[in-house]
């Protein structure tokens, strides 16, 4: 629900409340291989969002009737920690997280080379530890890096960011204050190498032209995030070779 619309001024003198310009991302921090037990993992920070993704598999899939005889099945669980939001979230899946898990899985499916591992599951678990709007996009960014860290063959990484509309302006990467008081929100995920959109959702209200501009803005920001994801992976694997710790 878009409460308090127009009651709070979100843009002052051409700057957003946190000082950002319209097309500016929040600070991003990526750490690869942060969990010991998982086959792959990634910690991802986007402004006030802190998420962690773990990948297990490919492994034998249970229940067996859910197996696909031709390819691996990606399972994705997006979960918010009860303390990640202002009003405590009751633990366990709700309708929002069921939908987010579905579209996030479908955002990653196009790059995972699932045909290599029939009858298995590749399980992706995303935990939102602290939320500040854009958690699903942070989760997809983390999951994509975690899949690479797990050594799962992929055509490319998936990069994700949201755009939205606040005080009548199309802006990149809404924070919680902007999301709660804004007019529209549109999360996007993209395969950078081919400019293929793998997640697209929108709520609120956009003119057609604003949508088109927003999509372009999200796509160019995805390229920036992609470079950071790549750099984090390269960094991790150039430093740890030869340590023999795992």
């Amino acid at each position: 629900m878009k409460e308090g619309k127009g009651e709070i001024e979100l843009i002052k003198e051409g700057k957003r409340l946190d000082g950002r310009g319209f097309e500016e991302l929040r600070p991003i921090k990526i750490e690869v291989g942060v969990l010991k037990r998982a086959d792959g993992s990634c910690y991802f920070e986007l402004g006030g969002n802190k998420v962690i993704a773990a990948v297990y598999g490919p492994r034998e899939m249970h229940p067996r009737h859910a197996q696909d005889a031709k390819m691996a099945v990606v399972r994705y669980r997006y979960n918010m920690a009860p303390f990640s939001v202002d009003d405590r979230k009751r633990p366990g899946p709700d309708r929002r997280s069921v939908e987010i898990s579905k579209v996030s899985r479908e955002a990653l499916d196009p790059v995972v080379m699932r045909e290599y591992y029939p009858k298995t599951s590749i399980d992706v678990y995303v935990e939102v530890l602290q939320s500040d709007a854009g958690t699903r996009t942070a989760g997809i960014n983390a999951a994509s890096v975690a899949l690479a860290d797990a050594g799962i063959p992929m055509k490319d990484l998936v990069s994700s960011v949201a755009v939205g509309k606040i005080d009548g302006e199309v802006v990149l990467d809404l924070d919680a204050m902007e999301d709660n008081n804004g007019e529209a929100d549109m999360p996007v995920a993209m395969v950078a190498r081919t400019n293929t959109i793998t997640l697209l959702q929108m709520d609120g209200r956009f003119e057609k032209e604003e949508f088109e501009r927003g999509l372009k803005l999200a796509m160019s920001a995805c390229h920036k995030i992609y470079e950071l994801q790549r750099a984090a992976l390269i960094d991790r694997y150039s430093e740890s070779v030869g340590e023999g710790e795992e």
Partner: protein
Amino acid sequence: MGLEIVNEVRKDYVHDLIGSGKRVDGRGFREYREISVERDVIKRAEGSARVKIGNTDVLVGVKLDPGAPFSDAPDKGVIITNAELVPLASPEFESGPPGENSVQLARVVDRGIRGSEAIDLEKLCIEEGEKVWIVFIDIHILDNDGNLVDAAALGAIASLLNIRIPNERYGLTGESTLPMRDTPVAVTAVEIDGNILVDPNFNEENAAASRLTVISNADGTLSGMQKSGSGGLKEEEIAEVVEMGIEKAGEIREKYLFS
């Protein structure tokens, strides 16, 4: 198991035909199946509509109950949208708690109505902070031949256009109608082998890697969007669906909501 194999064979059939520029039921790529909207079909509901798109058959019922508002919106009514993919409607549907497809269906329909602000939630306030009308939009699928989203969204807005507020039942007085401020209409298309096909039937949905729903309003603004399926879409493909979505929504609105 047998069903999966049959669906695989049908998938190949859909791809083969599209390769030669045809659809399984002979339609053009930008052509809907025949649509029918029948309103007020359930007398016990405060609003209802039965929508058929080809063989797809969806019944939407709207009920209003007095209840407590959300604490952060004490003077506003509440919308709750639910969808049931009952096993009667398709061999693929199973009974049990709502799965991700029914949750997604309900949430996309809900998003369109919410985003358009079609319902003036403040008009649903009975007593600030205490009592407001809760609008339950329940989507019941009767026969699934694909494109449930468009049928459900059309059924929802058609039902809402004729709401009778049940004041007497609860000993209340007030307006008995709920004027709608907008008419969001959903248009869904799939991408198959680089072609965009509007209003996919079951076999086309099954063969398609990605699907995009675009919900637009009377003035051509967008109030909801959802990509689903395990494929990706190009920017031009998305632009094509958006442009076609606005155009088709206009036609559907004229023909089935204001007639």
